């Protein structure tokens, strides 16, 4: 296939004639239409140039568009065309003109409209969330009356995936943070000769804050994102609709097991996380301050009173429920496209972590008189 080429002839009356030859087509891979357009731009600008397309082997839509826009979107006597070319240019002329749909919103009102949309979106999330909690309550009372329908398998699977499989990573992270915190505190406390208080700090911080919070953050990142993506993809591939047509409640089969499984696992995980954080701090205290582990462990129960443990369990439960509910909520809002899937997964994790930290702050204030 010959390359797209042109040559210029001077006519007797002083005007020029551009003669196109070769294949003016994208199929000729060596053709570059932006270069051709540049070479031809001088002739496009001149209203007296004649164009001869009779020697063109092949003219495709891409080349036709390039010529046609160059000619100012019309064909007249100056162009000598073959009939099939003329048909192509006629088709181009009949096409609707450029983006008439993009002009829309007035610029002055745009920020307010955006705000209003955000406001509506917020209420959409709120009602969606309430809906979810409501239907969960219904299902919960339903399985209380019909214990045969309790999805034990799914619950245990979720407990295993969200809880048991999270053991190594939560242990590692909290152990490292325990060590880091232990060292930092040890250095400060030594200045005041208050070495012994390392037990108070590590013990209380580990059980009351670090355990539940670290657990919640890791679970939100691990299981929360997985849940959102799973429910989202099941929505996209209509698997959820398939469940519904079989008469199986999606809330009962998909969401309830996740909520129960993770809610049961969360307090245990929080304990596990606390234990490793305290172990890390203990190690730091031994190395930095020479406080023996036996002493540390003996003194610990005097600082961390049982009510603190109850508080930690309660926090763990709350955070577990929050993370799962938020994950499921965002999963149910996934629209059937990739952008929405990634957006919802991100929102799920970000919202879950933010909410958990907000709730934790409220907890800290409300429970400031308990166990301290």
């Amino acid at each position, binding site marked *: 296939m010959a390359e797209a080429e042109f040559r210029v002839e001077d006519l007797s009356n002083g005007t020029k004639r551009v003669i196109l030859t070769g294949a003016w087509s994208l199929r000729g891979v060596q053709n570059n*239409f932006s270069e051709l357009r540049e070479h031809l731009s001088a002739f496009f600008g001149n209203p007296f140039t004649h164009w001869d397309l009779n020697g063109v082997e092949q003219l495709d839509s891409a080349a036709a568009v390039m010529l046609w826009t160059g000619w100012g979107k019309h064909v007249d006597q100056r162009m000598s065309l073959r009939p099939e070319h003329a048909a192509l240019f006629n088709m181009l002329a009949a*096409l609707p003109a450029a983006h008439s749909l993009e002009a829309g919103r007035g610029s002055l009102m745009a920020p307010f409209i955006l705000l209003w949309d955000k406001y509506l979106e917020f209420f959409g999330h709120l009602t969606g969330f309430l809906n979810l909690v409501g239907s969960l309550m219904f299902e919960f009372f339903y399985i209380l009356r019909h214990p045969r329908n309790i999805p034990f398998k799914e619950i245990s699977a979720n407990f295993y995936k969200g809880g048991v499989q999270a053991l190594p990573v939560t242990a590692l992270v909290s152990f490292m943070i325990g060590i880091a915190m232990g060292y930092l505190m040890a250095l400060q406390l030594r200045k005041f000769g208050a070495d012994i208080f390392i037990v108070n700090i590590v013990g209380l911080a580990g059980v009351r804050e670090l355990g539940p919070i670290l657990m919640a953050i890791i679970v939100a990142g691990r299981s929360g994102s997985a849940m959102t993506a799973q429910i989202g993809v099941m929505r996209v591939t209509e698997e959820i609709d398939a469940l519904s047509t079989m008469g199986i409640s999606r809330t009962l089969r998909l969401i309830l097991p996740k909520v129960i499984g993770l809610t049961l696992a969360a307090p245990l995980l929080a304990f596990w996380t606390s234990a490793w954080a305290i172990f890390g701090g203990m190690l730091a205290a031994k190395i930095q301050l020479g406080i023996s582990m036996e002493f540390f462990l003996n003194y610990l129960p005097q600082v961390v009173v049982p009510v603190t443990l109850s508080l930690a369990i309660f926090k763990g439960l709350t955070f577990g429920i929050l993370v799962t509910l938020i994950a499921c909520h965002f999963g149910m809002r996934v629209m059937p496209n990739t*952008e929405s899937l990634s957006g919802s997964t991100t929102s799920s994790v970000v919202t879950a972590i933010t909410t958990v930290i907000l709730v934790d702050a409220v907890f800290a204030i409300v429970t400031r008189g308990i166990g301290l």
Partner: protein
Amino acid sequence: MSKHSLACEITGVWTQYGSTVIHRDLNLAVRTGEVMALVGGSGSGKTTLLRHIVGLTTPSRGEINLFGVNLAKLDREGARLARNRFGMLFQQGALFSALTVYDNIAFPLRELRQFDEESIHLLVMHKLALVELEPKHAWLLPAQLSGGMVKRVALARALALEPELLVLDEPTAGLDPDRSEKFVHLINNLKKQLGLTVVFVTHDLDTLVGMTDRVAVLADQHIIAACTLSELAHVDHPFAQNFFKGVHERLDRTDKWKTAPTH
């Protein structure tokens, strides 16, 4: 026949996954300008062969040449240019779900970096007109389209770079008879207008009879016949015979005994 007039040439292709052999010494030649159907039982490796042809997968052994070049042996830039010479229509459409119909069709054009937005707009509208969609459909998202529209948009995207070879995987699967007839009509029209070579896989006999110049039968891990539909009667193989029965009825009905295109 000179080598140049072959759009696609498959020689001695073997495909093996572990101990499973899918293609055993498979040979096939697709002439330029013809519509070639690939038929075979479920799981006979038709889609795998299509994926080999467009270079998504490479066969374990053997060679596949498109327009006389082997995609696997080209460098990155060369392969990109060569890939612009064919378009593929996937079974599910494979439209980019986050982009509108307009942006889906404009995508390959923008990637070419040869056109300004004004030209792209015209080209997109031209492709929409080619596949008989209305301009207002351009602003819909793939999730908002019906099955037939998804196929047509996917076809418009495959046609965006004016390919010479169009590879279709089950183009009419999931369409109602009326829609699939229209789709066949559309492909036939496009073939006439643009001078396309078409390779397609189908299970739908009406589509087959409506479009095909030649049919390649994939059975027993290789092509047992590549001939016109009427010549299929002389192929001595249970699958081909069985298959021909269905084709025969339709050929009688449409009275459309096709002969091999003369090239």
